[in-house]
């Protein structure tokens, strides 16, 4: 190999430093990429939170004029886009990255550089989506961006160009990550870990990844059509040329409903890990929980028109989609019953991770029940596009996804920092968020049924909406304080938190069998798995004939082979080397997208950078320096 490397220009040499700023830019280590995802997502979460607080402040009273309607429409659009695509999805991706290889007993993901590429595209896509703020025109047609309001005629400003291109770029990132995790989970499990022995979080990641690679192509087509309409003058959503605006709604919701499960299934997976650990009992009915997750994933494809009950699809279509939607409540109910049964008879340690997991169940039940009420089209016709829906979606996305993800943060923080988050601050964080959440979104049920539509920047006095809007705003500030408590806890615990052992919670899965923080190669010897809850079994059942053995590391795209990771050499473990090319390819892609909004020369530059990156990627030497 040395013969060939010597001939390559210097820039193609693999970077070698595992410390310092550059080592983060060039890292392909799944744990570091997970950390990058986590911090970036949290930063975007704060941006989305500030947008939310501005919205709530505006709505605190009737006829408020704090923000203009133009700005308000951008705020609610960007709040949703930010929370969905830049906070909850990447926070889930952070956990996929941090946890999956550890849970399945692997040294990395299947394609480490592709993994780095996913992160960098996500970062640039997130910045592109937010770039509208710089020019004063952010997307302003809602996250659902219904055609034909989005056509050039009715939205001549630039905002929706950022929407279409930003989401296209972000979609590339999500799909790349999902391909990676499908292959990683299917192909890189430790010996003996059959599918039905995988931890539930791994299962839910697999289902989520399949949903991503199947749902995103659909919205990609919708976004391409929108972008072509706006940039090249095609007629996909131009009604004057005969287009039907419902095309967009179908494409959007065929993607959009699986997307809902993309947001919630990882959190369900986390809860399914936390409950057994803190109850010191195995998950009750593992096959039922897994199969219900899988069937939710499948059924998610058959319910999209329940977002369209008011468009006049006719009684037959409405009845059909009402029934499919109601059916999806069955596997969801099964999960909840199994979770409660997991707790039943256990020895519940009410630490913060469990509190957040319990909060998840409590709030998700409420969100699920309100969901059933709009699975019924006649009832939904009074609820659609009101604050009742806003309440519902926040109970499942905030009470569900965010609480689940917070349970995960408190649960796995010690694994990656070597320290515990502070319990007292954690409880404060939980109760502020739990009460704040109910105070913010609980009253919205009523406001919606009292006739308050969503997406209105102001409302007149005399509608009877003032008091509960004020309460809701107060709740949102409480939530804000809850997030501050979390941030304080995170920063202070990182610096001087109580030291954690490798297994602080008496964990059940393989990630707890290795040091905290894990060495770069994760497992010095790959464990052999003999059943579910592999590590628990090791600790308590001590399977006879347990023989740890070495297996090759991850990395089939050419970079897994040969490069020595830091500190891994003495074990003879080959770890993927660092690489410049993921960020170069991502930069090229983002530039090309920016070029579509600015100048064709920028497109050309972006494409050139991307081609250079792909070329370098392909011919990158496996060894760092020879």
């Amino acid at each position, binding site marked *: 190999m040395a013969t060939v490397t010597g001939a390559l220009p210097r820039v193609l040499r693999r970077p070698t430093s595992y410390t310092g700023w550059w080592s983060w830019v060039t890292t392909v280590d799944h744990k570091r990429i997970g950390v990058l995802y986590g911090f970036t997502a949290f930063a975007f979460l704060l941006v989305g939170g500030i947008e939310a607080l501005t919205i709530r402040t505006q709505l605190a009273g009737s006829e408020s004029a704090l923000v203009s*309607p*133009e700005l308000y429409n951008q705020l609610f659009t960007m709040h949703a886009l930010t929370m969905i695509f830049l906070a909850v999805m990447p926070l889930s991706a952070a956990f996929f990255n941090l946890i999956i290889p550890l849970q399945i007993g692997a040294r990395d993901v299947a394609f480490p550089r592709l993994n780095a590429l996913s992160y960098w595209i996500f970062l640039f896509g997130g910045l592109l989506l937010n770039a509208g703020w710089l020019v004063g025109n952010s997307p302003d047609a809602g996250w659902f961006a219904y055609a034909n*309001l989005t056509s050039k005629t*009715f*939205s001549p400003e630039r905002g929706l160009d950022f929407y279409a291109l930003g989401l296209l770029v972000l979609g590339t990132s999500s799909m790349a990550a999902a391909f990676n995790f499908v292959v990683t989970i299917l192909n890189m499990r430790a010996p003996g870990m059959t599918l039905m022995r995988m931890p539930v979080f791994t299962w839910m990641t697999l289902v989520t990844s399949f949903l991503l690679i199947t749902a995103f192509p659909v919205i990609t087509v919708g976004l391409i059509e929108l972008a072509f309409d706006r940039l090249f003058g095609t007629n996909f959503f131009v*009604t004057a040329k*005969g287009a*039907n*605006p419902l095309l967009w709604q179908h494409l959007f919701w065929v993607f959009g409903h699986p997307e809902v499960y993309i947001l919630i299934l990882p959190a369900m997976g986390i809860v399914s890990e936390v409950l057994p650990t803190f109850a*010191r*009992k*195995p998950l*009750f*009915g*593992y096959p*039922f929980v897994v199969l219900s997750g899988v069937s939710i994933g499948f059924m998610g494809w058959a319910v999209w028109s329940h977002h369209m009950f*008011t*468009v006049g699809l*006719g*009684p037959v279509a409405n009845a059909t989609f009402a*029934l499919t939607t*109601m*059916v999806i*409540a*069955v596997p969801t109910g*099964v999960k909840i*019953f*199994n979770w*409660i*049964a997991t*707790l039943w008879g256990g020895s*519940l340690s*009410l630490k913060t991770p469990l509190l957040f997991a*319990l909060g998840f169940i*409590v709030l998700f*039940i*409420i969100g699920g*029940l309100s969901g*059933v*009420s709009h699975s*019924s*089209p*006649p*009832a939904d016709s*009074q609820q*659609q*596009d009101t604050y009742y829906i806003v309440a519902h979606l926040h109970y499942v996305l905030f009470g569900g996804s965010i609480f689940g993800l917070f349970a995960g943060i408190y649960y796995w923080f010690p694994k990656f920092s070597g320290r515990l988050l502070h319990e007292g601050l954690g409880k404060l964080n939980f*109760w502020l968020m*739990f*009460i704040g959440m*109910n105070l913010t979104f609980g*009253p919205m049920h*009523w406001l919606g049924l*009292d*006739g*308050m*539509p969503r997406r*209105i920047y102001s409302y007149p006095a005399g509608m*009877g*909406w003032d008091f509960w809007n004020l309460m809701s705003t107060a709740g949102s500030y409480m939530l804000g304080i809850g997030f501050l408590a979390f941030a304080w806890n995170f920063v202070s615990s990182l610096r001087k938190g109580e030291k954690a052992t490798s297994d602080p919670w008496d964990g059940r899965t393989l990630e707890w069998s290795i040091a905290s923080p894990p060495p770069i190669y994760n497992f010095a010897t790959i464990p052999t798995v003999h059943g579910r809850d592999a590590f628990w079994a090791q600790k308590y059942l001590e399977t006879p004939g347990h023989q740890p053995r070495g297996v090759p590391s991850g990395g089939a795209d050419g970079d897994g082979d040969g490069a020595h990771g830091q500190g891994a050499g003495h074990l003879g473990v080959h770890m993927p080397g660092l690489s410049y090319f993921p960020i170069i390819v991502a930069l090229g892609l983002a530039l090309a997208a920016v070029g579509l909004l600015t100048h064709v020369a920028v497109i050309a530059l972006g494409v050139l950078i991307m081609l250079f990156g792909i070329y370098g990627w392909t011919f990158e030497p496996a060894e760092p320096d020879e």
Partner: protein
Amino acid sequence: MMDRRSPGHLRLAAFTLPLIALLAAACFPEHPQSTFDAQGPVAQKQLDLFMIIFWAAVFVFVVVQGALLYTVLRFRRRQQQDSLPPQWHGNPRLEVAWTIAPAIVLAVIAVPTITTIWDTATVPPGESLEVNVTAHQWWWEFQYPGLGVVTANELHVPVGRTVKVSLESRDVIHSFWVPKLTGKTDLIPRNTNVIWFRADQAGTYYGQCAEFCGIAHAQMRFRVIADAPEAFDAWVALQGERPPAPAGPAAQGFRVFVQKGCTVCHTFGGSEGEGVQQGRMDGFLKGQAQYPAPNLSHFASRETFAAGLLTRTDENLRRWLLDPRAVKPGNRMAQLAEAYTNAEKALSEDDISALVTYLQSLK
């Protein structure tokens, strides 16, 4: 002890909050857009169905949250417990049972859902009043095809008579919603929807666009005014007349109205001919400064203007004509009318007074 127990109690209080809120809503039927105060058969059926679901949900809520709360309180770790709890892995019979249980609850909801879907979708047989509703950015046009009446933002209907409504849009998607009379149905370009409703009590019912439709979406309101049959007939008769020729001070206002180009978008002498509004839309799409606008022939017979935003008083009209952008940001008149885009054509104080007089004369 205290910090062990209080979470449960607090949580209980927090759960019940939305419930109390829901029940409290039922106590405030006077709120103009309350969905709990159904005043016609369509809204009533939708409400009845919601109440079935609501009580089913309350039942499930109490059972499941109760079970969860009880489990957490009973099985919380008391002190240092060293022994492992029993390691159950599952119980297939139990799990099948709780797969079936939600299915039964859902069946209870599904049956009335299906019947209500068809009930509310089928226009009752017999005589009905036909109305064509066209939604525009950001106002409502109501046409009574059999009666030759066109009006804006205030839909008059006779009490007790079925109203068959045909919903259309020429620009973007909007949604027709009068909470006390009927749930939402969207108005979608190139897709016409037909719905029906009936008002059983005379009164004014508030409605509002319920599909985000752009900058002034929040201010795209309207009213349904249910009149006693005789009052409705009188209203129709008035609307069908040609408005009186402007005389006296109103004549001055009429001259301003014509000079300033208001007639490009506003019809004033009776109902529009076929295709007039479509022509204005086509003009807009071609880049001309025009947009379909409310028919002003009987402007002064309405209680409100600017899509239900303002009461029709001289003072409000003056405010609106002086600076429509300040009253209703984003509105098409401020954006397109020469009086507001061309400084040379701007309205003077006198112009505004004259226009107010003229408009208020259009009974």
